């Protein structure tokens, strides 16, 4: 009997201990949850009850140098249709009759597409104008769902499309300045927390709080001038149409600051007809910055400058042009197979003689020549800040497989590759007392760290000031020393040089066997205010002096007048009070 009682007590004691230990464990667990780990559970509870939504920050505007917007953001609506609401055909047709005309579709087609759709919410239209959107929203058609959003708006139309680039549906920059300065333009998205029901929908009149306010993106003011840009693009399109060119590039720059006033390239795309599904991504490139080409005879100015700077030649120095220059067994002829006899250095540039350039490269020697090539920034990215800028291609006497023939061909701009931007930057030094400027395209911008302005940067003194002035005079003789030169303009003294070389770029980015006809010029010679590079790509042979120089002559007077440069001579008919 006693033993039984004792066993009972032991069992009860064990049971009590089990309960006590369990209770203590539970108490400890509760204490841990309540006191130590409370934050995690509170957060989990909040997440359960509160939804979170990212609020897109308004994207900043891209402005021209005078503050006129080239790209800005406006409010808009995305239009969706709730498919289940359109199961009733009559209701669907009535709603479609209201919605379809606003989004530019036929009601019958809209009904068919919505009813065929596999998703519950059919995306009918993106970026509907705000005013149209509010009218449509007020119409309250069955099944209509409107989501307020923003869209990019281009007040100047398709101007500067390849330069500006574009944004995707998520408003992230995908090309051009929109992509290169996405951080500054995009702003910082905000967060809204709202009470939600069991299936995640916001509760009407439920509590809502802003976690983080969206920080609007900053504006970017470019050095581009909308007037000059529009003028340049119009002329480029017109010349391409007139001459049947495959494409082309025009850059206009202030030689004394490096500020780019206009930058246009073709083929490109139209912002008004932007198709993100276009497989030809090459159309979205800004070829003025991304594509290299052989500068051709334009490069003879660099060779001449090097020789003049070292005192090896003067504009009046002469050599005997036999029409051919031999480098070992390789013969190099003039572009027109001409034989000119005794020829001055100025005439080498005027007649664009390959043999003359080879003669000067021989005087320079490879070390001096490639030193100057490097000094002019050829074979180096300019640092303009635009994406996709290559360094270019220069095979120097230090490179493997270099031969003296390379030196000879490089001296007249062949066997060497540079971007149009590098070429205009290099030649601009002749219009700027021999100072090489860093080209820039952003004047100022609002960054998350505050406003930031850009000022002209002198990269280096490439040649002596006297050399630069001498080259400017010689280039002036190229244009004005040849009667009927197609780059000459009344009222302004122009310095310039033509260039023609092989390897045109096709629309898909491939290099064709055709040729590149270019002209680079600046004016007025005594105090240059602008420099312009015109480059046109052709399937067939064309000369820069025939097709590119006239483009310069067509638009330079308008640009100079716009920049406030007074013409000389009879064009100035009246002087104000």
């Amino acid at each position, binding site marked *: 009997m006693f033993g039984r009682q004792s066993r009972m007590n032991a069992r009860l004691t064990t049971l009590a201990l089990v309960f006590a230990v369990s209770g203590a464990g539970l108490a400890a667990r509760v204490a841990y949850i309540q006191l130590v780990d409370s934050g995690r559970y509170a957060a989990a509870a909040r997440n359960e009850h509160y939804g979170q939504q990212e609020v897109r920050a308004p994207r900043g505007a891209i402005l021209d140098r005078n503050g*006129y917007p080239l790209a800005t953001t*406006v409010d808009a609506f995305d239009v969706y249709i709730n498919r289940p609401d359109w199961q009733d055909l009559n209701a669907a047709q009535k709603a479609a009759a209201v919605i379809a005309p606003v989004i530019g579709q036929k009601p019958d087609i809209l009904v068919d597409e919505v009813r065929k759709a596999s998703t519950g919410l059919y995306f009918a239209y993106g970026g509907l104008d705000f005013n149209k959107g509010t009218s449509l929203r007020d119409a309250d058609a069955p099944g209509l769902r409107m989501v307020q959003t923003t869209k990019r708006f281009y007040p100047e139309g398709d101007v500067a499309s390849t330069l500006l680039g574009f944004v995707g549906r998520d408003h992230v920059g995908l090309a051009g300045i929109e992509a290169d300065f996405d951080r500054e333009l995009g702003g910082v998205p905000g967060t809204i927390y709202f009470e939600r029901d069991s299936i995640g929908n916001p509760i009407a009149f439920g509590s809502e709080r802003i976690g983080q306010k969206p920080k609007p993106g900053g504006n970017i003011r470019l050095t581009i001038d909308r007037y000059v840009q529009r003028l340049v693009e119009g002329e480029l399109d017109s010349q391409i149409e007139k001459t049947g060119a495959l494409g082309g590039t025009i850059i206009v720059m202030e030689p004394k600051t490096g500020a780019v006033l206009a930058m246009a390239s073709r083929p490109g795309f139209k912002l008004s007809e932007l198709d993100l599904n276009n497989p030809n991504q090459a159309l979205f490139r800004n070829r003025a910055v991304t594509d290299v080409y052989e500068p051709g005879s334009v490069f003879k100015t660099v060779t001449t400058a090097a020789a003049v700077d070292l005192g090896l030649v003067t504009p009046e120095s002469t050599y005997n042009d036999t029409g051919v220059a031999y480098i070992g067994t390789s013969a190099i002829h003039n572009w027109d197979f001409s034989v000119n006899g005794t020829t001055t250095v100025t005439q080498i540039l005027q007649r664009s003689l390959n043999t003359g350039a080879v003669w000067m490269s021989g005087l320079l020697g490879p070390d001096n020549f490639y030193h100057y090539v490097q000094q002019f920034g050829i074979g180096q990215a300019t640092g303009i800040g635009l994406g996709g800028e290559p360094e270019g291609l220069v095979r120097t006497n230090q490179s493997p497989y270099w031969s003296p023939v390379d030196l000879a061909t490089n001296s007249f701009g062949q066997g060497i590759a540079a971007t149009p931007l590098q070429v205009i930057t290099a030649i601009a030094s002749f219009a700027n007392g021999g100072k090489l400027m860093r080209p820039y395209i952003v004047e*100022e911008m609002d960054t998350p760290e505050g406003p930031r302005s850009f000022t002209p940067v002198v990269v280096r003194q490439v040649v002596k000031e006297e050399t630069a002035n001498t080259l400017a005079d010689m280039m002036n003789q190229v244009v004005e020393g040849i009667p009927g030169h197609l780059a000459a303009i009344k009222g302004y003294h122009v310095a310039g040089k033509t260039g023609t070389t092989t390897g045109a770029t096709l629309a898909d980015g491939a290099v064709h066997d055709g040729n590149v006809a270019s002209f680079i010029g600046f004016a007025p010679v005594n105090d240059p205010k602008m420099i312009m590079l015109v480059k046109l790509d052709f399937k067939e042979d064309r000369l820069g002096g025939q097709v590119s120089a006239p483009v310069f002559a067509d638009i330079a007077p308008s640009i100079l007048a716009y920049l406030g440069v007074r013409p000389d001579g009879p064009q100035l008919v009246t002087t*104000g009070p």
Partner: protein
Amino acid sequence: MAALQRHALPFPKRLSAPKAIGRLRSGRLLLAGAVALVVGAALLQVNQFSQLTSTSYQIDQLNQQRAATQAENLQLEADVARLSSLARVDWEARVQLHMVPAERKLYLDVNHAVPERETLPTRFLPPEKPAAAAPAAATTDPLWKRLLKLLPFF
């Protein structure tokens, strides 16, 4: 009649009649007051909640109005930009005014100041230079803060 002649029942001995009536009345009044207080408090809370909801709704409406006005403002600014665009000026000149490109260009020297740009929406204008430094914060601090700052360890 008998009922009328019957004496009224005596009050309990412990309480005199007027006192008892007074206490009963005051008890009822207290009860009524307490009930009124509870009801009042409840109604006050209901009223507060109602006002809160109403205010929340008004705030929501006002926020919507503000968003709509801001959107309208953006749209108007965009319209200003579109109307002052060169494309539109060109279109107006060619289509509306039937102008053609000049065949002969003459340059006039105009000695007048360029008009100031005022057509741009303010948000596109360059940011203004920061204003002169604000007056020292100490002068705008409340008295207790200024007193605290006099302490050597503060």
